[in-house]
């Protein structure tokens, strides 16, 4: 399921990062890689702050929709 559907505070495993090549690479460099753990810290209107590899990353709704977890 997409990251936008995840409840805050629950750790989830990243399955796949989609989206445009450039953004996908940028997310990978930030630590969004398949198999990694991602936790949602807070969410406003679909935009979210997530914890990945001990850093906080803010991502827009459109991007969060393209990160598959499960």
């Amino acid at each position, binding site marked *: 399921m997409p990251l936008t559907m995840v409840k805050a505070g629950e750790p989830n495993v990243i399955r796949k990062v989609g989206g445009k090549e450039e953004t996908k690479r940028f997310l990978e460099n930030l630590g969004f*890689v398949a198999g990694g753990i991602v936790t949602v810290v807070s969410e406003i209107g679909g*935009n979210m702050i997530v914890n990945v*590899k001990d*850093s*906080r990353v803010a991502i827009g709704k459109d991007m969060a929709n393209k990160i598959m977890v499960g």
Partner: protein
Amino acid sequence: MSVKIALAGNPNCGKTTLFNALTGSNQFVGNWPGVTVEKKEGKLKGHKDVIIMDLPGIYSLSPYTLEEVVARNYLIGERPDAILNIVDGTNIERNLYLSTQLMELGIPVIMAVNMMDIVEKSGDKINIQKLSQKLGCEVVEISALKGTGIQKAAEKAVAIANKKSVALPVHKFATEVESVLEQIELKLGSDISEEQKRFFAIKLLEKDDKISAQMKSVPDVTEEIAQIEKEMDDDTESIITNERYVYISSIINECYSKNKKEKLTSSDKIDKIVTNRWLALPIFAAVMFVVYYVSVTTIGSWATDWVNDGVFGDGWSFFGISVPSIPSMLESGLIAVGCADWLQGLILDGIVAGVGAVLGFVPQMLVLFVFLAFLEACGYMARVAFIMDRIFRKFGLSGKSFIPMLIGSGCGVPGIMASRTIENDRDRKMTIMTTTFIPCSAKLPIVALIAGALFNGSWWVAPSAYFVGIAAIICSGIILKKTKMFAGEPAPFVMELPAYHMPTVGNILRSMWERGWSFIKKAGTIILLSTIFVWFTTYFGWVDGQFRMLDDMELNHSILAAIGNTISWLFIPLGWGDWKSAVAAITGLVAKENVVGTFGILFGFAEVEENGAEIWGTLAGSMTAVAAYSFLVFNLLCAPCFAAMGAIKREMNNAKWFWFAIGYQTLLAYVVALCVYQIGTLITTGAFGFGTVVAFGLVALFIYLLARPYKESNTLKINLNRVAGAKNM
């Protein structure tokens, strides 16, 4: 013999703090050639022959952002003698990702694990010896904020740099990947030295065409790529990324133990409140209110009054000792040496009055910049971008555009410069074009003048100026987004949020000074020259065929009046087609705060208050209220002052874009002012003419541009010219 040490690390890892601590005031700040990425260089304290190069903060050596390209071109092309890699100890896994790439360059690396004080406080443990052994480089624990360990880190870096040795990476990937890399390394030409082979082999495998473009001979590796992609069922770039993280997790458990007890860090707890769905905007509004209240009405205005009325006015008292003001001191000095009248006029009425008026804004601006620097350094500014993104996205800008606009409310020059943090080229260009619509502190005297002279100081005039600015940004965002140049979705919002922390006083003051200085420099150079020019053209002219200096009563014979008369017809449709207003608008291009002073001079007052209280009556007699508001709108929106235009030119880095931005701003200002005047006159007096028809036509066109269907484009790319420019360093 001098050695070069490069500082490399992730954004927000404390690199700038460390750089400042290592070099002190011994810095040189410039730009990397051809691009608008800041380049900072400095000499290590106590070592004249050690140059420290502060590379931009990067997450990786991939070719996707300008900063990454600049950093890796420097590392490959200039080959510093050592790399000091700063690693955020609270976020070690992600930070080591860059470290694995730095170690492949063949340059000796010293790793400085920063924020050790926070790591220890949270009860986490980092085994430095183990880390050093696993990574094959020396590791030092530091806290850049507290200044602990930095000397040791610097000494180790200098020692290893002096050896001028090469280093080979220790870490290895999976056997399949290693065997492919080995095959590629064998194919590499002899122009690539042994220690760099691994870096180039990996980049070739990743299909990094910016690296292959720099190589003399590029071996064909399509076979190897096809082989490994088939074997591992992924593209090579993702394979390498994964391999790096797999390697890091394989060593991290031995080197790092996390205190599991606390689930949420204090930073997360703050974020739960500050970025809360309901509280985020009210908290943000409250913070902004405090910032502006303090910097505009209290501390800022005390300081500004002191400069305007004391230092440049009637003198001030220093603990009971009365100190004369600069103009009066100068005046008595000039009279004492028997200076010619015209020179006295130039110095006192021209230079001191002009430059002094500008410098009056400095204290207020510095107070504002202290607040903004604090908000930036403590981590709140990044959250603001996140909160505002939801709103800004609706009209085609990114949340990151908000920070330049906030700074631009103080001064447009640092505001435009702050647009550098926006990675996406289109978003950045649009931000540069629209930032100066927000009234900067220099435009406020114009607002005060018009409000006082024509509207009895009505409360709504000042807020309406901000409203006009914000509306101009929103409408420009929507209109420009639908043009070919800016079409396409804004880049998705992705931004790392640094953990909240208390910044050091030194860092805040430094940031305040860097921004304030860009304003003071403009007062010393461009404003100085232009006040001389304005003074000369105002006080000299032809009377009865004779060129001479003019009295205050003869100013309509001046050169400036002649210039004003030739162009004033342009502004007739806007309602202020007399030469004095035209001249005031022109001097506004030099610096917006000049507008009030120019009116003062032209109406025959040598010196006027900041809000021009003396000339309210004269001004009210010379134009209608609607015309005055049209004048105000034009001056708020049209091309900013020369200094800000210079900043736009620098940041656009392209003459065509610069002229497009200036042209767009001026055209928009003209059209809006025209509509305000024509339609306003129709409402107040019922006068209907050709101008009214044009105004309604323009309004219709404007609505069409706002509402026309949106064309999706698929050209989302970072500007390759800029990146190519970075390559030719």
